């Protein structure tokens, strides 16, 4: 990813430069590991995730420890990436097991603990598989080489004559073998990696590339797995925070006297921040209800005037001269506007944190995609150095780009500091829907032109506020321009969301492609293929169409077929949708087929699960998700009012995976979401002749389960 894209994405993610120089003392860490083998990485020797120089900062030249092999053969892998349901704990362990030549079960992953794992920017942008995967594989190869060399020395033979497999080094000539743990033999072996060792080709993978079930899967069906909201500590207390009655509110007055009278309640007041701590959640909730606060909420934009204000608040997209010239020569000219609403991530586990102070040091267990970023937030909030703060991220109840920030961690720490005891804070669903951040709303304008034979000649796509991801067209068109127009003063807090603006940009582009196909009277698939030179994208379009049976029957007023697709973040995808229109004119999404290719597949079962999930989640934004707001308040901050996909909304889904073992593995967490909305919109048009250009496509009643 080029540096400028990082900067743009950072901006959208509300991530400012949070990298600062700090000295980690690794001696304690090494003592913790005891004997055995430790593989480290020196400075920025390898192009690693955490080695990116950004915004003028370079990372500290620390030596980070990545893999430890204990004397009993246990392998511990350390990474700052976190598990949020995307199955990266499993797939990274597969990659390490593969290169280290050990069984999958020998690997244990320590993830997202700022005291134990190397610094990491965060788990977002579909970066874990393409960057952390090779990173850990490099470390594993180095470990294996060191083990072979150590065994060779012990036996007095040439290391090149030895083999490593199944956690052992073997001398094939005499059958001698030593288990990895025995080789380390209590001796402290350290290797610092400074190059790119040769990796095992995907075609030869035995552990990576297979459908290994989710690590610790049993713990998820027994309730044993501890999520951030499940963490408990001795003498734990429970917190609640008083929320303003609107965004950007200032406090006029607050009377906490009634709340203070409740048994065991502590009121914490710090400027406009008021929180309570109690021995149980119920009492804390009652205390908050008894606080009488008056707020001044300024006049703010409401959702009914959103797009009008959005256009006013951004610079206008002037038609590009070269594109206009090409467009003037086209047989068919096209100009349309598309919109997307603000939507919420609504992770099933709301923000949660347990904070504990001990001798001036702060430890916080919290659900976040950026544990190191949250450590920085905490350090700044309490004027601590970063080595006085530890953030631990237990595998959490999902994020979808919605948990980059550390508000809940800071609030819990503030309450725990005042209480002098550990405090747990779990946001309510209403707080999660209101005080987190949202996927930005946007307007997308497309101006295009094509020859009557279907050749695209001109394409201009202007995105207002929703973002630049997926904005560039993947189609071969000589005159093309893509522009992003920022809204400096949006009415809601905006941030990252699975796929970022790629969903919005694909919805607009693939709907427009469909409109143009109809204008030139071509089959929508053939029109795309005519203008597509990218083989990987062509392949997924054809694969989805084949599985779907595209072209075998034609749309009728009762049954519509649509197609859409695209590429972003190294993933290529296309979807076909079948929609049925019933006698009451209600629309039913009956069937979705999606093809996916993202290079060599690390875990086909995890990948299939994730693509299917992205499709279901994509249906929500496509059909009914929309944050309604007025006067600084969210009007539908409950699952009863904010409709998300449920069992009944889920159509028949088929996923076609294309495994390109000759290509590096890309991330698959996000781009699987982009194709569903345009495929559905195009299917609805095919059946009804009605073109829906806004996401969500209708206000609830139109779509029936």
């Amino acid at each position: 990813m080029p540096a400028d894209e990082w900067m743009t994405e950072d901006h959208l993610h509300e991530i400012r430069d949070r990298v600062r120089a700090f000295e980690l003392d690794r001696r304690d860490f090494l003592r913790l590991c005891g004997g055995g083998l430790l593989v480290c990485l020196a400075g920025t020797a390898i192009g690693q995730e955490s080695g990116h120089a950004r915004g003028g900062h370079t990372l500290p030249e620390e030596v980070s420890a990545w893999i430890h092999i204990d004397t009993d053969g246990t392998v511990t892998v350390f990474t700052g990436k976190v598990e949020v349901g995307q199955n990266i704990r499993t797939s990274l362990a597969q990659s390490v097991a593969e290169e280290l030549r050990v069984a999958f079960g020998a690997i244990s992953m320590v993830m997202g603990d700022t005291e134990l794992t190397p610094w990491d920017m965060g788990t977002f942008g579909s970066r874990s598989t393409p960057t952390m995967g090779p990173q850990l594989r490099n470390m594993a190869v180095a470990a294996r080489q060191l083990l072979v060399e150590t065994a060779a020395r012990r036996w007095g033979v040439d290391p090149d004559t030895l083999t490593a497999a199944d956690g052992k080094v073997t001398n094939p000539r005499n059958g001698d073998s030593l288990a990895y743990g025995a080789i380390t033999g209590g001796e402290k072996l350290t290797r610092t990696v400074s190059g790119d060792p040769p990796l095992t080709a995907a075609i030869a993978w035995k552990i990576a590339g297979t459908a290994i079930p989710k690590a610790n899967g049993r713990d998820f069906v027994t309730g044993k797995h501890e999520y951030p909201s499940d963490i408990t500590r001795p003498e734990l207390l429970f917190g609640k925070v008083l929320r303003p009655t609107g965004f950007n509110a200032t406090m006029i007055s607050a009377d906490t006297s009634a709340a203070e009278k409740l048994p065991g309640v502590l009121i914490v007041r710090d400027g406009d921040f008021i929180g309570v701590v109690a021995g149980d959640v119920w009492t804390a909730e009652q205390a908050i209800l008894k606080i009488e606060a008056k707020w001044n909420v300024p006049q703010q934009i409401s959702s009914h005037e959103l797009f009008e204000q959005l256009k006013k608040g951004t610079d206008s997209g002037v038609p590009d001269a070269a594109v206009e010239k090409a467009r003037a020569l086209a047989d068919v000219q096209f100009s349309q506007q598309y919109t997307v609403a603000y939507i919420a991530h609504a992770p099933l586990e709301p923000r949660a944190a347990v904070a504990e102070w001990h001798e001036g040091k702060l430890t916080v267990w919290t659900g976040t995609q950026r544990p190191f970023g949250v450590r920085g937030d905490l350090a700044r909030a309490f004027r601590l150095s970063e080595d006085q703060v530890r953030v631990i991220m237990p595998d959490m109840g999902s994020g979808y780009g919605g948990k980059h920030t550390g508000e809940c961690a800071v609030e819990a720490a503030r309450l725990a500091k005042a209480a002098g005891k550990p405090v747990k804070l779990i946001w309510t669903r209403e707080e999660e829907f209101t005080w987190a951040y949202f996927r930005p709303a946007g307007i997308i304008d497309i101006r295009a032109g094509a020859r009557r034979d279907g050749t695209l000649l001109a394409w201009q796509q202007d995105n207002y506020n929703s973002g630049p991801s997926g904005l560039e067209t993947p189609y071969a068109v000589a005159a093309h321009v893509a522009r992003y127009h920022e809204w400096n003063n949006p009415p809601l807090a905006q941030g990252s969301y699975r796929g970022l603006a790629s969903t919005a940009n694909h919805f607009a582009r693939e709907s427009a492609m469909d409109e143009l196909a109809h204008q030139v009277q071509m089959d929508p698939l053939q029109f795309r293929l005519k203008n597509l030179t990218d083989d990987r994208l062509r392949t997924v379009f054809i694969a989805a169409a084949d599985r779907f049976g595209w072209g075998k029957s034609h749309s009728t007023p009762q049954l519509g077929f649509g197609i859409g697709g695209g590429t972003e973040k190294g993933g290529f995808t296309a979807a076909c949708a079948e929609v049925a229109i019933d006698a009451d004119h209600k629309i039913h999404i009956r069937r979705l087929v999606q093809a996916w290719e993202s290079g060599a597949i690390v875990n086909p079962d995890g990948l299939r699960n994730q693509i299917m999930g992205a499709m279901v989640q994509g249906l929500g934004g496509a059909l009914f998700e929309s944050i309604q707001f007025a006067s600084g308040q969210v009007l539908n901050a409950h699952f009863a009012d904010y409709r998300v996909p449920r069992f009944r909304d889920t159509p028949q889904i088929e996923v076609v995976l294309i495994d390109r073992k000759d290509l590096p593995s890309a991330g698959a967490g996000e781009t699987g979401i982009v194709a569903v909305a345009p495929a559905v919109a195009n299917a609805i048009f095919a059946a009804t002749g009605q073109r829906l250009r806004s996401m969500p496509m209708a206000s609830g009643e139109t779509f029936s389960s």
Partner: protein
Amino acid sequence: MAEFTLNVNGVRRPVIAAEDEPLLWVLRNQLQLTGTKFGCGEGQCGACTVLLDGRATRSCLTPVSAAANAKITTVEGLEQQGSLSPVQQAFVAEGAFQCGYCTSGMIIAATALLREHAHPTDEQILEAMNGNLCRCGTYPRIVAAIRRAADTEPEMETRHAG
């Protein structure tokens, strides 16, 4: 505050709580049964589902006082002598989770469904499960897991009663 005795997973457990405190918080914070999750506190997501006398019940909307005379089963109570229940086994076999936060509630709801209908129709599955949210969108695999559990264990309603 009052004292109640809860019958949870076959064990009598004394607790002290306000009458109106939701059963969810008592299970999680007093009895450390954190397998039952908080998702919304509004009965809209099903993450907090427990069995109350065998019926799938939202523990976030159930006052602890109303649960005092019932047999409560949480996800921690489904294993029998260290073996997973058929529904739990089926969820593992189908990989019917992503982040897994909804899984406890899904498994409890599915257990109640299969107690009532050993071989549920598609409509019965949708009817029983539609109140449980999986934000990761794992629905097709959860349905597959329920079908698998129904196929493998027709007698489960007697083995895992209450």
